[in-house]
């Protein structure tokens, strides 16, 4: 039996004035997948993420999460459906303590998957070295601790689909490796993860499938080996396409 689809977009379009940020985006992510999205700067990756989680509305097209159309749904309602997102720039609440940051995410509704969600959250706290009783202000944390804190905050709501926008930005190589190991483990427990990333070493390490965006369109999609060996993909990164 085919694995069910957890995230699907149909002919998604978005323009900012004369600039096309997303054009006829059709893509599917299946339950339990770890998908990476890559593409040059301005390819439309973050815009696509912002449409998926409801920060920005699409001009046309449809978005489905776990089979339910969410195209016009408010962002907080999508979170209740099980979507979690981290931003390109860290947005933990700097004025609040680590404890408060971890306590803020909305308590998840009891469901069949809530035990798995609690286990994932506990695992992330342990591996990232975060103490849910820590009264240290988030503003006093280092960059990597803030990045990990935000991932843990998303996991605190027991999501079924996690969207991470450049989770390794600014991290040292050992910190990137630790992040990769955590994401792989979380994915192995059945959590669906979609990651926007520029670090190709990280992508090769974690991705099962890679989607390449270019000029607001899906340029290529395939396994890591297929994508990294594609001359066309190499050419857009070098600015020849």
């Amino acid at each position, binding site marked *: 039996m085919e694995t069910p689809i957890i995230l699907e977009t149909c002919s998604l379009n978005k323009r900012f004035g004369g600039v096309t940020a997303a054009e006829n985006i059709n893509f599917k992510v299946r339950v339990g997948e770890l998908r990476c999205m890559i593409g040059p700067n301005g390819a439309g990756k973050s815009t696509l993420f912002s449409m998926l989680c409801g920060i920005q509305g699409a001009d046309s097209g449809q978005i489905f999460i776990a089979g339910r159309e969410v195209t016009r749904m408010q*962002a907080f309602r999508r979170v209740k459906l099980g979507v979690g997102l981290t931003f390109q720039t860290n947005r933990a*609440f700097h004025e609040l303590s680590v404890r*408060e940051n971890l306590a*803020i995410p909305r308590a998840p509704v009891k469901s069949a998957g809530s035990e798995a969600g609690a286990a994932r959250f506990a695992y992330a706290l342990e591996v990232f070295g975060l103490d849910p009783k820590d009264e240290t202000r988030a503003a006093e944390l280092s960059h990597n601790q803030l990045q990990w804190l935000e991932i843990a905050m998303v996991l605190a709501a027991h999501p079924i689909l996690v969207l991470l926008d450049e989770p390794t930005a600014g991290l040292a190589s050992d910190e990137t490796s630790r992040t990769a190991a955590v994401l792989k483990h979380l994915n192995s427990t059945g959590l669906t993860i979609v990651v926007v990333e520029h670090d190709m070493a990280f992508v090769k390490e974690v991705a099962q499938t890679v989607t390449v965006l270019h000029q607001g369109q899906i340029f290529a999609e395939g396994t890591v080996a297929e994508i990294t060996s594609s001359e066309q993909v190499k050419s857009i990164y070098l600015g020849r396409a």
Partner: protein
Amino acid sequence: MKSIVHLIGGEADIGHTRWFWIGLAVAIVLLFFYPTQVSSFRASNVAFYLLNVPLGLGMALLWGYCGVLSFGHVAYFGIAGYLYGIIAGNMPGNPLGPITGMIGGLVGCGLVAAIFGYFVFYARVQKWIIPILTLVFTLLLETFLGQTAGYQWRVGSVLLGGYNGMTGIPWFQLGGLVFEGYAFYYFCLVIVIACYFGLRMLMNSRFGQVTIAIREDELRAELLGYDIRARQAAIFVLSAMLAGLSGLLYVQWGNYITPSQVGLLQAALPVVWTAVGGRTSLLAVVISTLVLNWLTYTLSSQGNQYAMVIIGALLVVTMMFFPRGIVVMLAETIGRRMPRRTRAET
């Protein structure tokens, strides 16, 4: 019991050491004994300072803790005051009149705030526009009330009175006990203490933490599953009802209200109290509201025509040299100089 102690003593407001709590307890005791040492005229003056505290606290809640500045919260002060006058004034001799007026005033201003808040927050109006909208609302209300002179502008037997205002508003009473003179002072004091501790507990609760999170980053909070529009609207209504509470006490204190109470000058005052004390602390706003009201009264009563200029200058000085508020920055300085062990007592 432990959770109540945690809610009162949490990090959402300044003051956590044993010495702070001792000092606060002494201050409250002194305030209770104050009327026994002074004339009813002086007690009445201090009651006036006290009755403005809920308005200041509402502003701290909305602006300091939720990050939304209203420049027209006195509109709710006025709505509650006028409603009390209308309801209680139409029930003369009825001991239930004042309590009905209190409830009606609070519910009325809460309803108006809910309607206003719904349109502002559910339309996701940008934050910098909200002070303008709220100011326009209160100025419109002032203009409307100003043209209500004449007998055609009466509700039941109560005249709205135009710019002359509504007069003869009854004192609050419970059964046979009329809250005037010293009793009114204690009535205000108990309300102020209840508002302060109630809000301190609210801001230390999960609701308060989420409110602060919304102030810090609305989008992040929404993407953690919170309907920030509903939260902001709820805080707006609560802060408006606190302003309304001040309005109710004001009309009982002076037995009158005029449209100037919802005018530009009055609209600016709670913003000044909150900014000067420090908008992120409830206690700081309590202190600054009391001190600045005392200062305004003292300057005005000594014939100083420039009382408001001095208050305005104080705001400018605060913004330039004490951006987080004078009381808050003073408390931070004291906290830094305290021995480490005392600081850790939370």
